[in-house]
């Protein structure tokens, strides 16, 4: 079924968060106001990205742009190898000793990250996720963890109003998620982000962390939001905090627990019979 909407209401980072946590395979197609992009995922990892005209997305131009090959080499390729697919060209370049496989992968990753950085700036655009769709046959797939990309994307979020919506309550505490395969050390974080991370503990509310780290409301919200979106932490009620509000017992005045259960069971019986 459909996973579609507009970036106005659902940002790229939120989509990446969804794809990451649900380990989705498929292609995210985004029609922006002036350009369109396709990003392909495999098991929740980024495999491929494509933005705008096809000619800029070929391996030759990418290697040139990321300075893996010189202008002269690129000129020769354009003449001799313009008909080749990316995979064929990659093999040719590796076999003839121009570049290593690692050069190619790194270069593609840089290029894909550039594309995502452009997308993070899009405020508007129709998106659709096509389940199961894979990387085009002639393209070289990579495997990039989304956590770093999401952290990067969240750094673009600069509006306090939006952050307040996303994170209304700073009295909550944080705990690290225990998702398998996520290693905090492999995530690129700024000094401020690391400082926040070092205070994460079910006992410390976000407000306490912001005081301890002397971060502004805006900064602490942005950092917590990016950690949340990257799936690294989750919100919990602080341990040993204020007493919880009175419970269900007060909802039906005068009834004790057994009477309440009997009452609810009567409701269940009635609704079953409807």
């Amino acid at each position, binding site marked *: 079924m*459909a996973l579609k909407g507009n970036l*106005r209401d659902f940002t790229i980072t939120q989509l990446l968060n969804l794809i990451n946590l649900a380990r989705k395979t498929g292609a995210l197609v985004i029609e922006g106001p002036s350009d369109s992009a396709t990003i392909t995922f495999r098991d929740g990892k980024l495999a491929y990205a494509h933005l705008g005209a096809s000619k800029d997305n070929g391996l030759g131009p990418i290697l040139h742009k990321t300075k893996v090959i010189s202008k002269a080499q690129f000129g020769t390729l354009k003449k001799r190898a313009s008909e080749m697919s990316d995979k064929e060209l990659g093999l040719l370049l590796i076999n003839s000793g121009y570049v290593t496989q690692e050069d190619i992968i790194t270069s593609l990753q840089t290029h894909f990250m550039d594309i995502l950085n452009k997308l993070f700036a899009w405020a508007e655009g129709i998106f659709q996720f096509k389940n199961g769709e894979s990387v085009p046959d002639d393209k070289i797939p990579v495997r990039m963890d989304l956590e770093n990309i999401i952290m990067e994307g969240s750094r673009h979020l600069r509006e306090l109003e939006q952050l307040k919506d996303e994170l209304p309550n700073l009295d909550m505490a944080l705990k690290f998620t225990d998702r398998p395969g996520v290693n905090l050390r492999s995530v690129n974080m700024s000094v401020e982000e690391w400082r926040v991370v070092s205070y994460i503990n079910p006992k410390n509310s976000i407000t306490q962390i912001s005081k301890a780290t002397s971060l502004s409301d805006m900064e602490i919200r942005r950092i917590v939001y990016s950690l949340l979106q990257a799936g690294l932490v989750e919100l919990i009620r602080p341990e040993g905090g204020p007493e919880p509000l009175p419970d269900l*017992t007060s909802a039906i005045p005068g009834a004790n*627990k057994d009477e309440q259960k009997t009452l*609810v069971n009567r*409701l269940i019986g009635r*609704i*079953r019979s409807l």
Partner: protein
Amino acid sequence: MQTVKMVVTGPFNAGKTEYIQTVSEIDVVSTEKKISSEAEKIKDATTVAMDFGRITVDDSLVLYLFGTPGQKRFDFMWEILSEGMLGFIVMVDSTRPETFREARTILETFRAYAPTPYIVAANKQDLSDAWEVEDMRIALRLDPTIKLLPCVSVDRESVKETLLELLETIITHLDSE
């Protein structure tokens, strides 16, 4: 005669009134109002103060279902309606991701009013552009322990099923106290 109430809340146009109407034994008593502003003109009428439906259990017990207004400018009603409720349902239109953020805000607001059990209903699952329930769980940032159920408000069986799930959640909650 004892009366108990449950509340159906959620963003504008989620299907709250429809949900209550589907199981109520009376015509839903609704304070609806014709919609005048163009932006909101995706349907004819919206709930202004509340709507309510009734299910009589026997001659000593009646269940009222209260629907809240979806629009923020009527949110002064929310706190009043939530008082003394047995539980609540947050209804979300699965075809409109632009309302998910608001649904989460409403959920948080109601949870703050009263720590009673609740479930989330992913409504309009009969429509082809409905999001999948598990995708919605992530988008709504719902904890795995919270019940998020597919729902079709126009379908009686579906409404019954979600009501029963809420009641089961209330029982579990009572047991755990």
